[in-house]
């Protein structure tokens, strides 16, 4: 039954029935014969997969023995229904012709017989087992029975090429099992045919032939399969089919056949088929590692006999968990060696659907997540290429030269891989092409062998001279900023970073401070001290000095240092509580608009004066659940959007640092960062004593990391596909051009694509990300990432090539955007619906004929999708409602998640939890990989745990933890309130070790600093706030736990399935 699956599916795809009939009438045997032969090599995977397949259904059943017999009958009956008459005879014939020579097809029946024999001999062992009836199968089934079985994929996986030799011994056994079933059907071939006839009128004519042949053929056909397929499995699953079809075993082959048959002349068809198949495979096959394919094709999860009842059916420990962190799909990279690394570009599925109808069945969004400047480990730096005379680009589509372009005409022309236009090779770029079409100078041309390169752009890529790195600080100096200590920490940090700002001697810097007035600082290098100018007219802001507000850092270094040193003391006595944020922003804009650059805003209170003042609209519990709920997450005043647009226009990126303990309307302030390619840092209730390290680290990273200035980014892709929407922190300058005033390694952008043509004719789609930017060194550069992805015709293949990380990254952005136009609840439901739809579609692929009613099946590649989906629904930005997360925190998290690269996002969604107490007291090596599931059950009262989500650490002390450890970690006062103590280096081993671990974690992802929070078990509400709500697998608030979530999904998947 499992085997049948494929057939129905395939059928609809191509109108098979008619071709069949025609073929049959002409020369049934021949035609089928060739097909089989051809298939054998090509489709080998199918069979093996089938064998695997069978096991699972049975495993579910408690009574193996009894089931087996029951199982058998259905197939036979099935065969009758489905049977396609022609094959039996043909089957005999096909093997021969296929192997030997196509021209022979017309062979008579006699001719057919021999071939089966041959195959038989090849597999002598098989013949006897065939006969043994039910008992055999039963035993077989009992063999493989893990509850969580990953099964091979059936027919669909054309690509999974499983060579015959691979067939494992068990396969034989399976084989025998199928036999029995097949036999019943075979003996009365006449009858089955009759039914077949009824179904397929076309066959009627052939019938006579087939019938007469049938008896002898049957065995033959079996043999054939073995010979052809090698793998026994198919036989097991296919017995029915064989009765019906005889020759063609795997469904895939069916496709091929059908295609092939359409043309009546038998001989020609087979040959035609052959190339066709290969072609397809060529496109599809590469990804599939034969063995791997089997194991990965899908996984299933036993949910108990009755979905919804939670008895032993669902084994919580068996649920898939990403304890190894983000696992990137490997097959894709292996397939296209010259693709850029996945740290730069990840596709949600590497199999691009070949038709719109196929794309519409893929519910997980086709798209890409791009991180153009991702950090590279030493040794893998992106090579820099300098063309002396212009960059080589396609004349028509402007694609940059890349490893996938083809040089023809003896090296004088090159064909663009994206639009396939033939371009001339400039004379100074010319090189001979050797016999295999490779340029002889390939190894000196990184742009022709590497997926990622950086071109030095000549003058035509500049609209103005490359700008210098420019940092401008807009600092709130009202009372709360001074009181919290923010001002001091910030000034110190900036001062310590002055040496490390990128751009060496070109760097420019400037400051504005504000409370109810705006203070400008003249930093002219000839001055001993900065000169302060105060402007109190907030309605008509003007710049008091034409220049010298923005100065060259190296020239005015001493003035800048003097300023930073005196800044905290200057406002020590400031009692001003107002904040003229809007006017100050305008002033900063006026100062910066000449050059662009990066604007860092340090905001401590709600803007209260002048343009852009915000109301305490706050977080209103009554608004939740109504149609207006989303308005509180939108900027209140259009001033902010307008300013953001202006900033982008003048190449200014805004990073917002917000510190207030009260409502500051991050939703409005963050808009500035959102549209300028910036970032929001939020430190609720900032206190220098606690958050100092965090601010210091994050601010200095912001100032010193390599930054690309005045950048624009475009993603080009091949004909027939088009990027339709972009998601992230940037502004679109035209339909497909992202304006990014500043980009760095911690930013990622997502895009969705759609098919423009109903059918893609190419076999590969190429993507090229081009980021044109000014480097800190003042060079104009173009960073180009190129990747190729195969076009597939099969949904199963899309699932196999899916990338959970990219999908979740895209989903999170879509969901967050949805919270800006509808309720939180709707956004969460949208995620859930998408996952359900995707799993249902997948289930429809495989499950219909496999009794999987009590199981949930999902592709191996998406095994973490449900869990990440759940985690996403529980993330700060989407979680719960009014009382679960403060509005500001929610908005800040949303802005952050919109920019996060895939890896950081996954870590945020499913944080690391490790137990460290044993390591602390013993001397063994610490294993950072030993992560625990995120559930309360993982927490032992005698243990000490570290929870790390990339943004903060939580150190959890079990109640029964040895007091020694506690004492060593936090000192003598270990009984005090943990909110007041922190882990600092102490003079003992335990303390040193834990600091070492924490530092190790921090180093692994330096983009944010994880502040360490200590939590004692049972110390509410602290424990709940920091840890319990983050344990995504547990039921918290109104949200599901992991097990319930899986049951819920499973139920929904099976509705209307």
């Amino acid at each position, binding site marked *: 039954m499992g085997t049948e699956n494929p057939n129905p599916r395939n059928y609809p795809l191509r109108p098979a029935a008619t071709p069949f009939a025609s073929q049959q009438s002409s020369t049934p045997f021949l035609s089928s014969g060739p097909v089989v032969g051809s298939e054998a090599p090509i489709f080998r995977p199918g069979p093996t997969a089938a064998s695997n397949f069978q096991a699972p259904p049975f495993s579910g059943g408690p009574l193996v023995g009894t089931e087996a017999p029951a199982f058998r009958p259905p197939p036979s009956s099935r065969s009758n229904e489905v049977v396609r008459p022609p094959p039996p005879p043909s089957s005999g014939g096909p093997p021969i012709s296929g192997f030997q020579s196509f021209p022979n097809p017309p062979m008579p029946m006699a001719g057919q017989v021999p071939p089966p024999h041959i195959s038989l001999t090849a597999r002598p062992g098989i013949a006897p087992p065939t006969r043994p009836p039910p008992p055999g199968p039963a035993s077989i089934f009992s063999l493989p029975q893990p509850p969580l079985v990953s099964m091979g994929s059936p027919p669909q996986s054309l690509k999974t090429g499983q060579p015959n030799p691979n067939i494992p011994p068990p396969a034989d056994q399976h084989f025998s099992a199928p036999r029995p079933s097949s036999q019943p059907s075979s003996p009365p071939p006449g009858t089955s045919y009759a039914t077949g006839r009824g179904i397929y009128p076309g066959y009627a004519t052939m019938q006579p032939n087939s019938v007469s042949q049938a008896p002898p053929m049957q065995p033959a056909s079996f043999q054939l399969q073995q010979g052809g397929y090698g793998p026994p499995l198919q036989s097991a699953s296919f017995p029915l089919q064989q009765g019906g079809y005889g020759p063609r075993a795997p469904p895939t082959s069916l496709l091929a056949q059908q295609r092939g048959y359409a043309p009546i002349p038998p001989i020609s068809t087979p040959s035609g088929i052959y190339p066709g198949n290969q072609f397809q495979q060529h496109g599809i096959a590469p990804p599939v590692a034969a063995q791997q394919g089997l194991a990965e094709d899908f996984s299933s999860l036993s949910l108990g006999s009755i979905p919804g009842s939670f008895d032993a059916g669902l084994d919580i420990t068996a649920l898939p968990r990403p304890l190894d962190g983000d696992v990137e799909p490997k097959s894709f990279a292996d397939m296209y060696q010259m693709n850029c690394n996945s740290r730069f570009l990840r596709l949600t599925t590497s199999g691009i659907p070949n038709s719109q109808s196929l794309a519409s069945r893929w519910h997980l969004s086709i798209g890409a997540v791009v991180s153009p400047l991702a950090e590279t480990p030493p040794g893998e730096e992106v090579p820099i290429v300098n063309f002396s005379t212009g960059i080589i680009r396609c004349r028509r589509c402007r694609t940059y030269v890349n490893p996938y372009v083809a040089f023809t005409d003896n090296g004088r022309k090159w064909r663009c891989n994206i639009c396939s236009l033939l371009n001339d090779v400039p004379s100074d770029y010319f090189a001979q092409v050797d016999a295999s079409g490779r340029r002889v100078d390939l190894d000196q041309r990184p742009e022709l062998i590497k997926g990622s390169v950086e071109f030095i752009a000549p003058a035509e890529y500049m609209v103005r001279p490359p700008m210098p790195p420019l940092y401008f600080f807009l600092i709130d100096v009202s009372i709360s900023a001074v009181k919290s200590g923010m001002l001091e920490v910030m000034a110190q940090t900036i001062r310590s970073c002055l040496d490390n700002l990128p751009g060496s001697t070109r760097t420019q810097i400037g400051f504005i401070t504000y409370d109810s007035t705006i203070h400008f600082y003249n930093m002219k290098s000839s001055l001993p001290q900065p000169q302060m100018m105060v402007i109190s007219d907030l309605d008509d802001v003007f710049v008091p000095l034409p220049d010298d507000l923005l100065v060259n850092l190296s020239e005015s270094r001493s003035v800048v240092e003097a300023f930073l040193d005196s800044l905290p003391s200057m406002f020590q006595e400031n009692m001003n509580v107002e904040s003229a944020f809007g006017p100050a922003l305008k002033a900063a804009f006026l100062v910066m608009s000449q050059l662009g650059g990066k604007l860092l805003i340090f905001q401590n209170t709600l803007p209260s004066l002048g343009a852009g003042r915000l109301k305490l609209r706050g977080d209103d519990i009554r608004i939740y659940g109504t149609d207006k709920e989303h308005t509180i997450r939108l900027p209140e005043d*259009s001033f902010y*959007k307008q300013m*953001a*647009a202006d900033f982008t226009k003048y190449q200014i990126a805004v990073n917002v640092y917000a510190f207030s303990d009260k409502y500051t309307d991050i939703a409005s302030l963050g808009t500035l960062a959102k*549209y300028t390619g910036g970032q929001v840092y939020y430190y609720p209730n900032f206190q220098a004593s606690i958050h100092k390290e965090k601010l210091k680290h994050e601010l200095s990273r912001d100032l010193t990391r390599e930054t690309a200035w005045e950048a624009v980014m475009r993603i080009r892709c091949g004909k027939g596909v088009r990027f339709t929407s972009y998601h992230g922190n940037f*502004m*679109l*300058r*035209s339909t497909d051009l992202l304006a990014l005033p500043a980009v760095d390694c911690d930013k990622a952008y997502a895009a969705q694509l759609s098919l423009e043509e109903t059918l893609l004719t190419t076999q590969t789609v190429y993507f090229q990300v081009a980021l044109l930017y000014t480097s800190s060194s003042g060079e104009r550069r173009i960073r180009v990432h190129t990747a190729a992805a195969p076009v597939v015709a099969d949904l199963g293949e899309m699932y196999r090539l899916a990338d959970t990380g990219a999908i979740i990254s895209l989903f999170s952005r879509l969901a967050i955007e949805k919270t800006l136009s509808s309720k939180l609840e709707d956004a969460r439901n949208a995620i859930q619906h998408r996952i359900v739809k995707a799993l249902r579609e997948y289930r429809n692929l495989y499950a219909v004929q496999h009794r999987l009613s009590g199981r949930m099946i999902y592709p191996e590649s998406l095994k973490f999708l449900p869990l990440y989906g759940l985690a996403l629904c529980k993330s700060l930005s989407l979680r719960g409602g009014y009382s679960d997360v403060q509005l500001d925190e929610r908005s800040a998290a949303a802005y952050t998640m919109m920019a996060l690269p895939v890896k950081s996002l996954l870590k945020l969604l499913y944080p690391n939890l490790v137990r460290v107490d044993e390591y602390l007291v013993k001397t063994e090596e610490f294993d950072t990989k030993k992560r625990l599931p995120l559930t309360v059950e993982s927490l032992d009262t005698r243990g000490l745990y570290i929870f790390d989500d990339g943004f903060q650490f939580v150190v959890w002390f079990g109640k029964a933890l040895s007091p020694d450890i506690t004492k060593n970690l936090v000192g003598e006062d270990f009984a005090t309130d943990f909110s007041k103590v922190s882990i600092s280096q102490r003079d003992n081993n335990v303390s040193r070790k834990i600091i070492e671990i924490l530092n190790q974690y921090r180093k692994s992802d330096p983009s944010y600093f994880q502040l360490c929070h200590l939590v004692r078990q049972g110390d509410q509400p602290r424990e709940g706030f920091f840890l319990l709500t983050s344990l995504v697998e547990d039921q918290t608030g109104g949200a599901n736990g992991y097990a319930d979530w899986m049951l819920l999904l499973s139920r929904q998947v099976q509705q209307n399935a």
Partner: protein
Amino acid sequence: MKEVLAWLLFFFILIALLVMIVFQLMCLADLEFDYINPYDSASRINQVVLPEFITQGVLCFLFLVTGHWFMSLLCVPYLYYNVRLYHRRQHLVDVTEIFNLLSWEKKERLFKLGYIILLLFMCLFWMIYNALEDDEHSF
């Protein structure tokens, strides 16, 4: 004669509306094909949004006071839609999101365009009808 003049006035108002909407559509189309940047496009469109709303309101009002309640009624949905947009402060094009909203903005304006053309034809019909009637009377 009065009647004809009134219809003539309506006709010109409708033409003015038509021009404003076509102008907005052109800006959007230019934007889509990358002839102008989003900043210019948005500011040009936003310049004529309010005039368009006001003109339409005036038209509706004039229909009413001249006793053409049926035509006035026809204008009401349009007016209601505009007023609602204005109240929600969604009447202006948002430059930061213009590309994401492009298809919607175009659809909306195409719909308005169709609406105006319909009104225009009715207006023409009544104008000619009245003119002919006047003719008859004059004989």
